[in-house]
């Protein structure tokens, strides 16, 4: 047994980790209580097998690439960072990238990850044409919209619970450059932030950073980052069409004491960050895709800044109609609690594509909290607000929601479980997350 945890380093649990080297060996590795793991960037317990975890990052080969159509077939362990570094200079990027590029393709499909363009272009799964799945009962099937479509739509966003994703065929976006034309809007409160996001529906990329320490009149004050792919003619002379994504050298070498991020330090940081951002607001400028999409990737092992006990990310989505009131209430509680969330991101989402996909039309808010004190109770209270508004939590980030919260948020669960059962009658594929949230006990 090995101690395994997700990116949030909470919980830390036992699971046998296997690293098969062939698809045949993947099949042999599956037994009761198995789930696949990519690069371990799910925050909680999604990529930890109930008994056994199958590490897939060794499967990192491209099968083929068609430069005319931008279609690519690859093994599930290929990292998005690899895809970007390899095909970016050739003029192709993934349509959807989450906040870190260090996720595997299999993981991105399983979580149906979203990016800053979900409001207009959908999630990762929308650009997956087909996938090769090793089901819990041992079949290897190709699944797409036309073929094994139930398995296909259950696998997109299915948190690895339909089987082990071996390969996928997906479409890449043709780009002229690896640069983004960024425009920053400052919003003095939550209303202004939501209005700005609403008004930016036509922007390809949009996301708001919220200062969660600000209270009262300033509650929800934000910087909104809009982005468009920059054309070659927008680059100054002598600038390479594709920027270099440096290997991060700056890291967090140790677990910082959990008091490092306290109310005062975060307040000071946020104040400075907001003021500097607000000063840049209005105009537009060209930035490399790396800092635009992956601001935290430059800080290796940033998860250690929350200390040894780990941290929780609470990411909910609230349907549009009730969003303003609930988001205001959540932000107010967070601000009053004073335990500052270092990162808070607000973003508009559209419809999800997979049966268990997280996104629904509305607003998503992501907050980070160190694991300490009464945080679990505090988040349970927040969950009540989310559920009452018809919202739900993102499974890729979750480590602690209750069965009731989950069931209320994901009404398609029954359909999902029926498909899962047909692919895996014996129930071999189970993760710590599925055990916690919905496997029959």
């Amino acid at each position: 047994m090995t101690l395994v945890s997700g990116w949030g380093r909470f919980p830390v649990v036992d699971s046998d980790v296997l690293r098969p080297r062939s698809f045949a060996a993947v099949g042999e590795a599956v037994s009761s209580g198995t789930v696949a793991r990519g690069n371990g960037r799910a925050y909680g317990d999604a990529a930890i097998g109930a008994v056994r975890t199958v590490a897939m990052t060794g499967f990192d080969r491209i099968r083929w690439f068609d430069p005319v159509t931008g279609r690519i077939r690859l093994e599930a362990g290929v990292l998005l960072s690899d895809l970007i570094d390899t095909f970016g200079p050739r003029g192709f990027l993934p349509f959807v990238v989450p906040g870190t590029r260090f996720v595997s393709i299999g993981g991105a499909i399983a979580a149906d990850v979203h990016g800053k363009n979900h409001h207009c272009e959908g999630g990762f799964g929308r650009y997956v044409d087909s996938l090769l799945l090793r089901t819990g009962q041992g079949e290897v099937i190709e699944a797409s919209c036309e073929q094994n479509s139930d398995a296909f739509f259950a696998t997109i966003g299915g948190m690895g619970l339909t089987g082990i994703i071996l390969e996928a065929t997906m479409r890449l976006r043709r780009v002229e450059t690896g640069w983004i034309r960024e425009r920053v809007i400052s919003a003095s409160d939550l209303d202004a932030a939501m209005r700005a996001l609403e008004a930016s529906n036509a922007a390809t990329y949009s996301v708001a950073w919220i200062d969660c320490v600000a209270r009262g009149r300033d509650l929800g004050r934000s910087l909104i980052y809009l982005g468009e792919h920059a054309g070659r003619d927008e680059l100054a002379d002598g600038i390479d069409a594709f920027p270099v994504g440096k290997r991060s050298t700056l890291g967090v070498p140790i677990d910082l004491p959990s008091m490092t991020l306290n109310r005062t330090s975060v307040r000071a940081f946020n104040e400075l960050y907001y003021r500097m951002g607000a000063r840049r607001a209005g105009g537009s400028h060209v930035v490399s895709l790396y800092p635009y999409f992956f601001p935290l990737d430059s800080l290796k092992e940033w998860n250690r800044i929350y200390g040894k006990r780990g941290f929780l990310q609470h990411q909910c989505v609230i349907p549009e109609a009730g969003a303003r009131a609930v988001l205001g209430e959540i932000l107010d509680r967070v601000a009053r609690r004073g335990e500052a969330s270092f990162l808070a991101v607000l973003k508009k989402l559209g419809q999800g594509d997979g049966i268990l996909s997280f996104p629904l039309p509305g607003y998503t808010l992501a907050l980070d909290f160190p694991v300490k004190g009464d945080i679990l109770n505090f988040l349970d209270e927040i969950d009540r607000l989310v559920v009452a508004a018809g919202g739900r939590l993102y499974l890729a980030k979750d480590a602690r929601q209750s069965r009731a919260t989950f069931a209320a948020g994901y009404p398609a669960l029954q359909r999902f479980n029926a498909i899962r059962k047909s692919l895996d009658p014996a129930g071999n594929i189970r993760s710590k997350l599925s055990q916690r949230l919905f496997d029959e006990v």
Partner: protein
Amino acid sequence: MTSRKTAMVLGGSSDIGRAAARAFAKCGYDIVLAGRDVAALEPDAADLRARYNVEVGLHRFDVLDTASFQSFVGGLPALPDVVVSIIGLLGVQANAESDLAHATAIMRSNYEGPALILGLFAERFLARGSGTLVGVSSVAGDRGRASNYVYGSAKAGFSAFLSGLRARASRGGVHVVTVKPGFVRTKMTEGMRLIGPLTVEAPVVGDAILNAVENKTDVVYVSGKWRLVMLIIKALPEAVFKKLKF
């Protein structure tokens, strides 16, 4: 006629082999992968073509079948510009202590085979007056340790061979690189307890090999820390060293 350079990777299906092939292909080299099981190399060849739009050739090569080496080298359609030998067999020290066949396999896979094949290529390269040979040896060859001296002694032999070959070949326009990776997270080291700060990922070794070839480096410790560690280990008096269990 293409003006592109070609790099051949012996042991192309290993993790370091895959990483080295990618590093060279990314840099614009055409690639030749050689290994025991050509069919198993096909997906790697497809990967290199898809990623970097380079030519990739496959050849069967068995490091223990030294009788085939002459015809292997003679049968190549073209002499590569760079030959990298990643081949090695860690084996199990405890078994090698009493199982002569296993000990022989370790010695032949880490020394005899790699040295003979690079030696053959060296003759061809010297006749041509150009080329680079890369031997992936090991820090384990710097001093025989209780826990892996069968492997270590074979690597020591290989390191010594490369050192001598380098001295001779350098006068003929041929460069020889010795690579000592230290701990690398690969299938060879899977299950071993590796010391985190001294351990690197295979792509780092791949890049280091390419850089050594491009910069004509002689001996590369992939992580600079290993140079220091081995300097200390080599400096320990035998009376002290023999009491250590590692």
